[in-house]
């Protein structure tokens, strides 16, 4: 197909560059500078899609972001496919492949259009009134069929191949929109030296002036001036999509989509988060369609869009046009098209006696004008073929053949961003439209977005906004007379029940759907929207909301400002998920944390597990060992000799200051005052509701310095909680908190031979049993590296935890491993750590406890500093349900009757497994392992009144069977603690 509708001259396209593309497999060409929509129109294609509900044939309505109909899927392969793109926004590139949507088997013949023939059976909200019988049929029968008809495009079938970038920026003035007002605003602000960011969704700056050849000199001059300012950042192809609190604006910048099939190395787009001192919204205005019977046929488009296709893209959108208007601007379109060789069969004006220079120009060109007239119907299936025109109130109509209808109901200022900012809209009765009123943020609207209609007024308001935003004096606004247009359904005199005048094209909402909703009691505009779905399509009502309001207003006899609008929400136009996700993908999605020992463990073939954001070595299999075998071997090695464990992920907080001990007294349940420097204590932290939130060993390094450890997952939470209390509750304390989690590598050496292994490596400290008892800390050197050496055990064996600067972690680890070889040292992972601590009945916060356990529940009452006046959670512990000893769940051990049976963690305990469902559950298994030391399974459980039940038999009901268990003390191994001293 050749570009039959391309004009020989004019426009901003580059005729030297021919751009091949396909639409539904048909090969066509356009030129550089085309959008997909303009290229399709150049090839005479109006039919581009099917509507959502009735699958009506639909054409291109607009030339911009407001397009409701021309939705297509674009992409060279599944990894680059995007559905639902507006052809009016897709820049044409070499080889572009577009497909139409929501049609089977073809755009011309769509079986889904059966709903169109049966339209009387599908009024607004029909689905609420049927499909209710029989029970279950909705899920299994009706819903799948409705879903198949609904939806528009299809999902990409393969992962996105593109990359995305993100950036943060600050500026004095952010100008959104580079039309005449935005350009003037940016230049006025930049002249003061202010840092300005100017963005526009179009590839070129100019806005509406891109379709005004008469203004090209002025535009060129402004662009040249822009280039002269180093303090202006210019962002074309950048949509301001969201207005967030405190003047933060989200921008989405297209980087490569318009270039076509480029490599995926360069980012596809960039999300900007701009914090601006002042924002100027120069976002223009959107033309409204007129709501008349069968106003949705391909070939019926907005008048200003048609003019844009002629003037900017040098495309003739048809051969014979009828112009239907309630606004002078459409006359300019009529003249443009006439000059481009389109026959203007009639200009039909709803107004009784319109006058003005635009009309004069049309009359001068000899165009036939009918005033006080209306269109009462159209013909044509895949393209409009004729309209019926009648004088308002008259019975007989004249049929006028045409292949193009232009419509204009006037213009709606684009107040989306202003309204998102929570600024109050004001209704301008002269415009019949909402304009920005009282702002909620430092923001100024300019140009058509603020209600201007003439170029002079727009330029002046832009300049004033730019001056005002930079604190300069502002001249009085340019006076102009604005014109409103028409809102709602036009008069057509036909039986309303038998015609469909579309308000929301994409969602197929007609004027009578709206009156039906009103009749059924849906009076709030939000109810009307939700019941009819008007304004809920992918264009979010850009062309339809005001007409819907007009219909509601007229039907209810309530003025529009009393009805109000629905809420404007971000994004202004749809933005790919990838922009928001940005760099956060793969390993950069919640970036992996690795310890200084990680690489060593990986080299040894360790199997890792995720623990919060960390990778932790779970076990170190040798040869073909299973996890079970490896863990049994590692456990045995620690109990009999010595093991090496990477505890670096433990949270660490350095607490310093003269009141450090008092701060810990107030935070933790334990008493800290009497803890001497050089000693350790096991601390328990509660929430204010009395439940355990964290635990860890705390070392007193000096009178005013503590080394606090937390659980791996709790590190950030505990630091936040401490800071919160310090800054809001305990403001009298002189205390400083520093996270040192990543500053230390922590190497645990555990087992009866632990001391023998490290002794040769320790300098500046006596680590003999006499000099360094259990639960003490000393600062020394280990393998030549400064260290905080803890004598502490989470295994029940003699143990040390060596804290060394993280950069030396691996070196010290390797030195210990080397020194331990003659002692048979074995690295072990988290799984072995879990088994060893469970054999000793040591809890893991988050496994034995679940946010509902008190210290007493898990047998840790001894840790509470009884004499302390207060600590976080103390008051809560006195509450009746917590102080009660009879129905609390308490920590116990479990032994299965069959020693080989390892219970599933999470399984529940009951007294009588034969009772009917729902069963009375007494507790659940929190930890369950095979114990190599005991040569049998062991488990820990939280059981109601468990300590009093020790010795009793309970049952674990499993699907199809039940396991008997005996409740025991939770300490299975070395209950006397004799092994702590090796």
């Amino acid at each position, binding site marked *: 197909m050749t570009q039959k509708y391309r004009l020989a001259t004019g426009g901003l396209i580059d005729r030297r560059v021919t751009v091949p593309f396909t639409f539904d497999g048909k090969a066509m060409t356009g030129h550089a500078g085309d959008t997909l929509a303009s290229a399709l129109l150049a090839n005479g294609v109006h039919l581009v899609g099917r509507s959502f509900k009735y699958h009506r044939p639909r054409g291109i309505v607009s030339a911009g972001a407001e397009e409701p109909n021309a939705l297509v899927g674009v992409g060279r392969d599944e990894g680059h496919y*995007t*559905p639902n793109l507006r052809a009016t926004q897709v820049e044409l590139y070499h080889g572009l492949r577009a497909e139409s949507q929501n049609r089977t088997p073809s755009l011309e013949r769509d079986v889904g259009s059966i709903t169109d023939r049966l339209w*009387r059976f599908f*009024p607004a909200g029909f689905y*609420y*009134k*049927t499909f*209710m*019988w029989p029970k279950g049929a*909705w*899920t299994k029968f009706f819903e799948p069929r409705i*879903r198949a008809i609904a*939806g*528009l*495009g*299809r*999902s*990409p*079938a*393969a992962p*996105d191949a593109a990359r995305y970038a993100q950036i943060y920026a600050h500026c004095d003035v952010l100008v959104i929109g580079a039309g005449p007002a935005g350009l003037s605003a940016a230049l006025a602000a930049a002249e003061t030296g202010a840092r300005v960011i100017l963005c526009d969704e179009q590839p070129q700056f100019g806005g509406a002036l891109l379709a005004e050849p008469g203004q090209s000199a002025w535009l060129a001059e402004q662009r040249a001036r822009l280039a002269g300012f180093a303090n202006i950042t210019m962002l074309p192809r950048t949509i301001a999509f969201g207005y967030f*609190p405190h003047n933060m604006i*989200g921008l989405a910048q297209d980087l490569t989509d318009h270039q076509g099939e480029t490599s995926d190395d360069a980012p596809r787009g960039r999300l900007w*988060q701009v914090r601006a001192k002042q924002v100027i919204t120069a976002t223009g205005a959107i033309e409204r369609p007129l709501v008349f019977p069968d106003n949705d046929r391909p070939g019926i488009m907005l008048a200003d869009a048609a003019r844009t296709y002629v003037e900017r893209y040098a495309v003739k959108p048809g051969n014979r046009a009828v112009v239907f208007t309630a606004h002078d601007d459409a006359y300019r379109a009529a003249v443009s098209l006439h000059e481009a060789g389109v026959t203007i069969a009639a200009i039909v004006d709803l107004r009784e006696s319109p006058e003005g220079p635009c009309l004069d120009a049309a009359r001068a060109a000899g165009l036939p004008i009918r005033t006080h007239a209306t269109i009462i119907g159209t013909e044509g299936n895949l393209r409009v073929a004729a309209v019926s025109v009648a004088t308002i109130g008259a019975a007989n109509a004249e049929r006028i053949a045409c292949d193009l209808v232009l419509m204009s109901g006037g213009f709606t200022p684009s107040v989306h961003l202003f309204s998102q900012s929570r600024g109050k809209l004001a209704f301008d009765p002269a415009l019949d439209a909402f304009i920005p009123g009282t702002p909620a943020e430092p923001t100024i609207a300019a140009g058509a977005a603020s209600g201007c209609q003439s170029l002079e007024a727009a330029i002046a308001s832009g300049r004033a906004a730019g001056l005002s935003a930079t604190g300069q004096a502002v001249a009085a606004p340019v006076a102009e007379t604005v014109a409103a247009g028409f809102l709602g359904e036009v008069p057509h005199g036909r039986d309303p*029940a038998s015609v469909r005048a579309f308000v929301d094209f994409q969602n197929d909402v007609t004027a009578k759907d709206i009156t039906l909703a009103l009749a059924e*009691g849906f009076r709030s505009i*939000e*109810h009307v929207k*939700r019941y009819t779905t008007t304004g809920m399509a*992918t264009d*979010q009502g850009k062309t339809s909301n005001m007409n819907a309001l007009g219909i509601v207003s007229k039907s209810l006899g309530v003025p529009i400002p009393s009805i109000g609008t629905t*809420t404007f*929400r971000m*994004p202004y136009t749809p933005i*790919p*998920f*990838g922009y*928001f*996700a*940005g760099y*956060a*993908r*793969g390993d950069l999605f*919640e970036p992996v944390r690795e310890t200084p020992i990680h690489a060593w463990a990986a080299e040894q073939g360790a199997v890792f597990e*995720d*623990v919060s954001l960390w990778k932790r070595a779970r076990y170190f299999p040798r040869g073909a060992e299973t996890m079970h075998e490896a863990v049994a071997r590692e456990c045995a090695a620690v109990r009999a000799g010595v093991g090496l464990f990477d505890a670096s992920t433990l949270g660490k907080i350095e607490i310093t200051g003269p009141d450090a001990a008092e701060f810990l007294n107030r935070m933790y349940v334990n008493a800290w005052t009497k803890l001497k420097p050089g000693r350790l204590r096991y601390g328990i932290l509660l929430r204010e*509701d009395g*439940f355990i939130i964290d635990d860890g060993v705390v070392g007193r390094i000096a009178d005013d310095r503590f080394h606090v450890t937390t659980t791996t997952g709790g590190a950030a939470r505990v630091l936040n909680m401490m800071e919160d209390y310090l800054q809001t509750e305990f403001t009298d304390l002189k205390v400083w908190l520093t996270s040192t989690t990543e500053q230390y590598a922590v190497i645990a050496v555990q087992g009866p031979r632990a001391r023998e292994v490290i002794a040769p490596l320790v300098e500046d400290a006596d680590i003999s049993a006499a000099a360094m008892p259990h639960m003490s800390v000393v600062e020394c050197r280990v393998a030549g590296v400064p260290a905080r050496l803890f004598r502490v055990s989470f295994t029940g064996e003699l143990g040390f935890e060596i804290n060394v600067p993280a950069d030396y972690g691996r070196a010290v680890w390797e030195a210990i491993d080397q020194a331990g070889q003659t002692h048979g040292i074995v690295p072990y992972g988290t799984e072995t750590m879990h088994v060893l601590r469970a054999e000793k009945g040591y809890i893991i916060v988050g496994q034995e406890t679940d*946010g*509902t356990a008190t210290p007493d529940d898990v047998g840790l009452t001894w840790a509470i500093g009884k004499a302390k006046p207060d600590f976080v959670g103390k008051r809560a512990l006195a*509450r009746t*349900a917590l102080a009660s000893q009879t129905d609390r769940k308490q920590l116990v051990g479990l032994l299965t009757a069959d020693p080989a049976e390892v219970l599933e963690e*999470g*399984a529940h305990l*009951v007294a009588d497994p034969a009772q009917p*469902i*729902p*069963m009375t559950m007494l507790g*659940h298994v929190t930890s369950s392992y095979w114990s190599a030391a005991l040569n049998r399974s062991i488990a820990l459980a939280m059981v109601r009144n468990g300590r009093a039940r020790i010795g009793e038999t309970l049952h674990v009901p499993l*699907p199809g069977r039940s396991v008997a268990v005996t409740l025991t003390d939770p300490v299975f191994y070395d209950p006397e603690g004799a092994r702590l001293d090796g």
Partner: protein
Amino acid sequence: MQKFSAFALAKEALSGQKGWTRQWRDAAPKPAYEAIIVGGGGHGLGTAYYLAKKHGLRNIAVLEKGWIGGGNTGRNTTIIRSNYLFDESAALYDHSVKLWEGLSADLNYNVMFSQRGVMMLSHNVHDEQVFKRHVHANRLNGVDNEWLSPDQAKSFCPPLNIAPGMRHAVTGAALQRRAGTARHDAVAWGYARAADALGVDIIQNCEVTGIDRDASGRVSGVQTSRGAIATRRLGIVAAGNTSVLMAMAGQRMPLESYPLQALVSEPIKPIFPCVVMSNTIHAYISQSDKGELVIGAGTDAYISYSQRGALHISSHTLEAICELFPMFRRMRMLRNWGGIVDVTPDRSPIIAKTEVPGLYVNCGWGTGGFKATPGSADLFAYTMAKDEPHKINAPFNLERFGAGRLIDEAAAAAVAH
């Protein structure tokens, strides 16, 4: 009440849709009511319906300061499930699921309850422990919930990425097949219409400005933007605004209000057959009947009454969605919005009498109230009618906070409701 059916649709199709009548009357307030419900969301409208239907009250009003269904009822991601851990919660939410199963027929309004299954993803050993604990507890409570391997999870939800090398690999999932979604607006409208048919006055644009009490301290009525209205039975069901209303009766509530966001993509043909939730990486997603991907984000960190959330919260959710479903990375966000969720100290609701005679409160649903709508309404109606709680909602009283008898599902499971 005009009966809705395929037959009625056909009849109206042939007569120009002229026969449809108001789904509920635009009632003006009467001087007095037997019972007044403040809050025209699903819970409040449902309460009025069950008060009229099951307890025989006829003179009931629902007062709504805006438009019915405009709060969290119309802003949530419509997930319905009952696989809660604790006995009290499982009983509450499963009572609700059972009512959902018959709700369309009961109301003669298609609320589109779709039992598509809700699958909760496990990403690590801790998740597995938590979810298996749920599966075991649910089985013994008679609530369906089953454990799936990653392959089984993928076959239930084909778009799911289960590559072992992904950042937070999927290690399994807990699936409740009876769980699903419903059409949120229809719930409000269906209850409104059915309640109206039983004589309930639904009064919109009527803001309560004061609560009147007699000499004994008992509730005697309310002051509203449309005048004083007398009643001796007042139920407050106002989500985030409950604290404000209860303060009018001198009651301080254990509630904090946070913004919670959700978003939808542009509509696409059916691709996503169920609901998937991942609490570990903060995302949940389903596909609406219209075709939009419906995605829920987390709450903001700060309390607020602003019905919008911070960009970084929704961005983080989309990061997670794009990792779990890489084919959706090019899908586009169509609309993002916020609601205000009222959160109690244990993240479980309050459905209770108060210390003020005649004053009842139903609130604290946090991020998970929609799923409970029918059950909550039914139990609250019972509590108001009998002046005592039903045994299912008895544990969800106000006294539990003072006593420490919390029902802390979120702490127990690290699970977003």
